[in-house]
């Protein structure tokens, strides 16, 4: 797969931002993840060319941190906290119901590109455990029964009806 010209320009600009940093890789990858949405091998090759860091090393960093993704993420990223407090308050049940409702495993994205389901470590919201975040908006004290409602709300945002 060859990158589109606009993508090359975008990635190049991101690399340019950190050209004076001693260890720019994490910052570059963070920005690419946020702005481009994912970091496929073609993008890593370009980053390698711009920074002189080997592709294998970049790939190692991308696969080390769960924040980085090799495949496109959905429009809505549902993060279920599985930190200790959330876990003892039943977070496993919540993520299982999300998994079942969306038909995807944690780490995967729905075919229509709407949702990615992520298992998170502690997000620092232990007081409202179990917590779920959707694109940064936090839903407190989640139960399995509320899962469909949260999903429906995202469809509402899109002006769409939730599929059965």
């Amino acid at each position, binding site marked *: 797969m060859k990158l589109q010209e606009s993508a090359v320009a975008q990635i190049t600009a991101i690399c340019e931002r950190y050209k004076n940093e001693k260890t720019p890789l994490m910052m570059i990858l963070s920005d690419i993840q946020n702005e481009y949405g994912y970091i496929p091998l073609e993008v890593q090759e370009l980053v390698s060319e711009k920074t002189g*860091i080997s592709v*294998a090393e970049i*790939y190692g960093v991308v696969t080390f941190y769960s924040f980085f993704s090799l495949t496109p993420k959905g429009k809505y990223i549902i993060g279920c906290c599985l930190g200790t407090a959330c876990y003892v308050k039943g977070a496993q049940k919540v993520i299982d119901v999300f998994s079942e409702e969306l038909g995807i495993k944690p780490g995967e994205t729905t075919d229509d590109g709407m949702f990615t389901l992520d298992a998170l470590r502690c997000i620092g919201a232990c007081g409202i455990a179990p917590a779920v975040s959707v694109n940064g908006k936090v839903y407190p004290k989640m139960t399995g029964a509320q899962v469909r409602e949260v999903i429906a709300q995202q469809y509402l945002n899109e002006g769409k009806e939730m599929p059965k």
Partner: protein
Amino acid sequence: MSKVNIKIEGVPYEVEAGLTILEAAKACGYEIPSLCAFNHGECNPGSCRVCLVEATGARGLVASCVYPVSEGMEIRISTPKATEARRRSVELLLSNHNQNCQQCDKNGKCELLHVAYLTGAREGAFTGEHSETHYDDVAPAIVRDTSKCILCGRCIARCQNAHGLGILGFENRGFRTFVSPAENRSFANSPCIQCGQCITVCPTGALMEKSEIGKIDEAVKAGKHVIVQVAPAVRAALGEEFDYPVGTPVTGKMIAALRRLGFERVYDVNFGADLTIMEEGTELLGRLTNGGVLPMITSCSPGWVNYAEMNYSDLLPHLSSCKSPHQMQGAIIKSYWAKEHGVDPKDIFVVSVMPCVAKKFEKEREQEKVNGIPDVDAVITTRELARMIRRAGILFNRLPEEDWDQDIMGDYSGAGVIFGVTGGVMEAALRTVYFKLTGVEHDKIVFEAVRGHDAGIREASIDINGTVVNVAIASGMKSAKVLLDEIRAGTSKYQFIEIMGCPGGCINGGGQPYVRSCFLPNEGDDILDTYKEKRAGALYSEDERQAVRQSHNNPQIIELYEKFLGEPNSHLAHELLHTSYAAREGFKS
């Protein structure tokens, strides 16, 4: 250098400040078992935990490979706490290792097995889940088997240090971590140049050459004319496999061994090297006088050719069109030799013994075939030859000294021998180019300025009858890149450049015997600093012993041109001895 006072097992010593406990202990006569640390910090992650000792001032046990000595430190290596911890560390490594030692070609040279022996670690101390493993034997040169990997990272460091390539990296994290080219690709689908430097540093059998001993056995069974040819650098290192001091040339015994292994003819690739000089020297003179593409770059090293095709395809016209010596010689065996002996080329099986694993790749190139017949059928490394010798029960040190077969291609010059070391091809070429331009031999024969035995760049200006030829030599792709970027920028001042893939040249090739202090008890502690120079010395001494020192004075080369090829760069020479290159993608989709 300032000194510090330490005690080891209660005995006082004065050692250099700044040393790690491991290094200081070595200087005082202790070899603490260790695994991940390698070659003066080339790789030093402190990750394997095999070298744990007790040291005052430290909390708990410390990894001696990364912990520095300090004034007044008291070190205990032999306490039950330390010995048990080291044993446990090795047992933990073994618990995620496939432990099929009898199936592993590294057996006998495996550092994991060695530290297991030293520490008393035994199998089965810990049982449980194993990491998912990955096996890649797609590339012709290198096999990767992560079931044997201990995640030390030596291979990653070596690829980066030698070539700046960084083909290998850690993938994933925690229990799922493994070493691979990005995306868990095969070496064949990555920008790997298949030089095998990673193999030479791997402590276990996780990275190995792809053995072709089986192919030779099949050819013998099929009744083929199995002919062997041996590269110069092999004789400088094979002895190490049989307990000879590093740097002992073992040419005569090696030939004797090859005869006893049943090869119909035993030839020296030096003949092919002399032939290469005739062709390459003529090509250079042509380029110099006819305004051809300069600088011309040597093309003997298949690792370098791989690198050029994947990274500098715009500079491919700079590469000499000459095949490498063993490919040339293979082509001559299957044409000239076949004709002289009345043998169908299809019934000939040419085996090359090489210090190199990239040659395994090279022989399979489409551009290295004549009328669909490959020049060379199998390539084995110096290490594989040693395995064949052991397998046959040959006691190497009791062999007599024998000489190469001498029928039509046994002669070779000293110029051919030095092909095995960085600067050697350049020197061999200069000896002949000097003669061609002046009509007389260079009075000193040797060109000291181009000699060396390590990575890095050397340059020289040679005045040949008023014509000044600027030359440069690089080995390892990190050094080569500097010269190549100059050419790209139009600032290169050279007419002729020699590039070899491995740092130091073929003497340090990816197929050479492993250099490890723990398996070379009679060598000094500094053997990792000196082995390249010692091996190079073996080749330079053989050059000096030769009656003929220049390729163009090799009588059988002269005869080959008279009877068969016509003249250098003739039509037939081009058909048989020259090749072509093509741009390639590193990451193939």
